[in-house]
């Protein structure tokens, strides 16, 4: 799976550099938000809100 993903990334980068840039920015934002939100939910379940 990783190999085909790697090939796709390299092909995309060589075909459209601007598009690759946009995909990187979008992916970083999406992964960041989703992992961050999941962590926030877990922390709240554990009673760690950070508000004092």
């Amino acid at each position: 799976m990783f190999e085909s993903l790697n090939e796709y990334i390299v092909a995309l980068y060589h075909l459209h550099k601007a598009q690759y840039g946009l995909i990187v920015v979008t992916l970083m934002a999406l992964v960041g938000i989703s992992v961050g939100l999941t962590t926030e939910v877990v922390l709240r379940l554990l009673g760690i809100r950070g508000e004092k």
Partner: protein
Amino acid sequence: MLHLPIANADVNGWALLLLGFFVGVLGGFFGTGGAYIITPSLHIFGFPMAFAIGTDIAHIFGKSIVASFKHALLRHVDFKLGLMMGLLGMIGVSLGKQAILYLEKIGQVGPIVRIVYMVLLFSLGLFMLKDYYWYSRLSEIQKESIERKPSRVVLWIRGLRLGPYISFPTSGVKNISIWIVVFLSISIGFISGFLGVGGGFVRVPILIYCLGLPTVMAVGTDLFAILITNSWGTYIYAMSGKVEIIGALVMLVGAAVGIQIGSAATGYVKGMKIRFYFGVTLVLAGVAVVLRHLLMPTLAGYLMLSSAAILSSLIIFMLIRAVAEERYRSKEEVYDKPKA
């Protein structure tokens, strides 16, 4: 091992995940991106230097979204000030890059950048440690009032009569000369562009000691400013093919978890304690730069890596202890309440 297709290198995926987590905890706690830790560490893990910088910037962008959101929930972000600092900082970054290009032309870029880096890290770090030492000798009542009282520099800056003026009600900064904010923002941007870092390690002390922001507010506002500048930086570096998307994503997963923990910890730890640990980190980063200057880059990388691991573990420990104490106190209150 994880294969990175664009850099054509192999790195340990677990090491990347852990590195992201440790620096994420520090980033959420101090309000820095942590480029001074990640870039040399990535280089040790086998990333070519140019890819290390680009990948680092991309993952910092992702985690700064999470951190800004978390700090916004805690009401630790002054969006107006952060937006101004982020946008004006971009002008400074361009000026800093021009300075680097000039130094490159005359063949002096390496030593001058390292010396400026060392001077900044040591002076800011030692100043914060001295500030904490002075604070630790005060009585508990004095400690309470001193954190709220603006310093002489802050009073001088706020008293400057040079219109037009601007206010930042969220941070409690009223009628400050707009030129001060412009000057500080561009100067921080210049340092970022000159040193090739996010600039958080300069912005946080400036927000505290020059504009008089409470420590937690400085941390949150800085992370928001980093989000603005790094969004553009990520795009530029990705377009020039210097971002290893797989490596950046793996680090981001660790960092997004770590930064939530670090940000939550700021709610339980006193502002002065945050300044103390920040000072320690800056001094250690300064020692790492000295080691790199003495041609010991691997040792410097290991020093930063181990200190990041130790400091973030300490922050997690402080958070767990504070939460446990809070629970114990709330239980005691329940038992102490007289039955109706």
